[in-house]
């Protein structure tokens, strides 16, 4: 027993300080944007949607693990994945809060964010997205309530509240149904947000909603699994069952195959005949400024190589290789969101009847866009780190007791 306990910073503390610093810088930047407006960005009337919308779309896609795994556990009866669903749900909660933060940054009048809930235009895909996201965020709050209820410190300090939160778990199957419906809707209609715009020929196609959905089905679980791997390696507070992660990683591999299938036919159909605007955007993607992003980021590193790794058992069972592949999937989905957003806007619309030549514009995010974007991501990483440490969101051996309480509404109990 030494009289004074000296505080020795460990890598964990340094990591927290680093994230907190980046997040603080981001929030300071956010304050600047709120007071000074969007003139500090490099967004223009030609490219009104940039880095932030990409982060927003990616955060929502990366949260897709939550609805998929909850549906698998509570609707398909695949109960052994329940601990992973728990991780995914928490990541979903954090992901959606990140999306809300970037949206607040992005809209010109953040003080009027509530207008979307009060003034309705059901015709707008963004209205539908807003409604679904709001409702689904509520679902995620309920779904994550038991995680907070089961935290030891919560049970010690507020035993009654903790018990109350824990009982919400009884409704998990119903929440899974609602979550599935809402997620299928808005994950797809985020693609439709672009897909219905006839003014942007590269976007105007029904496939975008399907592709957004399928890519989210790959990226969401991939991030959940990646975080589980990392937590398992880095902290004793996480306990990981490799066989669970392995099977889900295999699933991600199959989703990638489906995704590549859709993308192939989608891209092939666009490559025939000259269509003003669309052909230029496609050229931008495949041969122009976005080509590296497209071929390397989206296709090769983002889908083909990880699909191979995740489908070949010998490669997949190598845990580090599996984690790298999952990280590549996440990167690929982010690259896809960025490319979709940019390809439609960098080609300037023409409305002059005599003008055939298409013009291009440029966009490079400004410093404050990067700083605030990094801040939002750091906030997410911080929340997940704290969740792993204090809420034990990555714990594959804890849940047997809880599992027994749950009634499955759709799948027969085994």
């Amino acid at each position, binding site marked *: 027993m030494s009289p004074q306990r000296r505080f020795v910073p460990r890598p964990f503390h340094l990591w927290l300080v680093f994230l907190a610093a980046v997040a603080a810088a981001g929030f300071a930047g956010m304050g600047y944007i709120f007071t000074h407006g*969007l*003139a500090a960005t490099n967004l223009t009337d030609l490219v009104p949607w940039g880095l932030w919308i990409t982060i927003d779309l990616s955060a929502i896609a990366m949260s897709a693990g939550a609805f998929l795994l909850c549906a698998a556990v509570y609707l398909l009866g695949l109960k052994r994945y329940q601990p992973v669903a728990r991780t995914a749900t928490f990541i979903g909660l954090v992901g959606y809060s990140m999306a809300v933060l970037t949206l607040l940054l992005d809209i*010109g009048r953040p003080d009027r964010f509530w207008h979307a809930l009060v003034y309705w235009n059901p015709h*707008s895909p963004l209205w539908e997205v807003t409604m679904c996201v709001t409702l689904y965020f509520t679902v995620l709050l309920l779904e994550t309530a038991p995680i907070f209820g089961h935290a030891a410190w919560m049970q010690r300090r507020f035993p009654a509240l903790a018990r109350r939160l824990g009982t919400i778990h009884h409704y998990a199957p119903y929440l899974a149904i609602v979550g599935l419906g809402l997620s299928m809707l808005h994950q797809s209609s985020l693609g439709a947000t672009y897909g219905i715009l006839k003014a*942007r020929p590269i976007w105007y196609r029904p496939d975008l909603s399907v592709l957004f959905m399928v890519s989210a089905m790959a990226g969401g679980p991939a991030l959940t699994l990646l975080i589980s791997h990392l937590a398992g390696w880095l902290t004793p507070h996480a306990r990981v069952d490799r066989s669970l992660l392995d099977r889900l990683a295999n699933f991600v591999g199959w989703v990638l195959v489906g995704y590549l299938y859709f993308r192939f036919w989608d891209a092939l159909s666009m490559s025939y005949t000259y269509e003003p605007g669309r052909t230029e955007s496609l050229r931008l993607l495949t041969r122009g400024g976005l080509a590296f992003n497209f071929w390397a980021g989206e296709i090769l590193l983002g889908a083909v190589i990880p699909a191979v790794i995740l489908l070949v058992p010998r490669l997949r069972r190598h845990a580090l290789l599996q984690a790298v592949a999952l990280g590549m999937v996440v990167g690929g989905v982010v690259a896809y969101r960025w490319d979709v957003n940019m390809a439609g806007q960098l080609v300037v619309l023409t409305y002059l009847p*005599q003008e055939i030549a298409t013009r291009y514009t440029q966009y490079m995010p400004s410093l404050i866009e990067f700083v605030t974007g990094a801040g939002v991501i750091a906030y997410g990483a911080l929340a997940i780190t704290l969740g792993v440490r204090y809420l034990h969101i990555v714990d594959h051996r804890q849940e047997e007791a809880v599992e027994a309480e749950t009634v499955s509404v759709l799948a027969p109990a085994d």
Partner: protein
Amino acid sequence: MVIDQQKCTGCGYCTLACRANNDVPPDISWNRVIEAGKAGDKTVFLSRPCMHCEHAPCVEVCMVGASYHRPDGIVMMDYDKCIGCRYCEVACPYSVRAFNWEAFTGPNPAVPAWGEPEIERRPRGVVEKCSFCSHRIDRGLTLGLKPGVDPSATPACVVACPVGARIFGDLNDPESQVSQVLAAQPAYRLREDLGTSPRVYYLPAREETA
């Protein structure tokens, strides 16, 4: 509205009148005058206000209904509802919309010393665009004037045009000047292939045969 490219000289008075009347900031144009090729030796200009489309993409996609159709067909902005998401900007095929990236403060260089703008300046963070000077139309109608005939009930750009290249009126009224002109002459609209049905018609410039 009908815009006669044969008459238009590209002087830009329409844009200037619009700026003064609607207090449009210097970095935004509700009306653009663009060089659009040649007819013979003559440069042809395309003057572009909001098209006030019958099937307006901006109205369809605005999630709060801040872009809406007035009963008379004008595509209008509710600046108190707009949250500044800029979806309408991305959706508009004619690039008529502009976002207020910063607050417009101080005097407007386009507003002459002897007059003042007829509508309120828009705040930072909302999207703005041409309204066909709906305030002039509405005020004129209450005074019993006829838009398109009486200057004070007619959009400022139409009144200011020194060569009379702009004609304004009710397309539903077969007796109005716009209907008469469109019945008599070939006209076209911008990007008709998109199915937006713009309410701005252009009379194409012709090569003069002397």
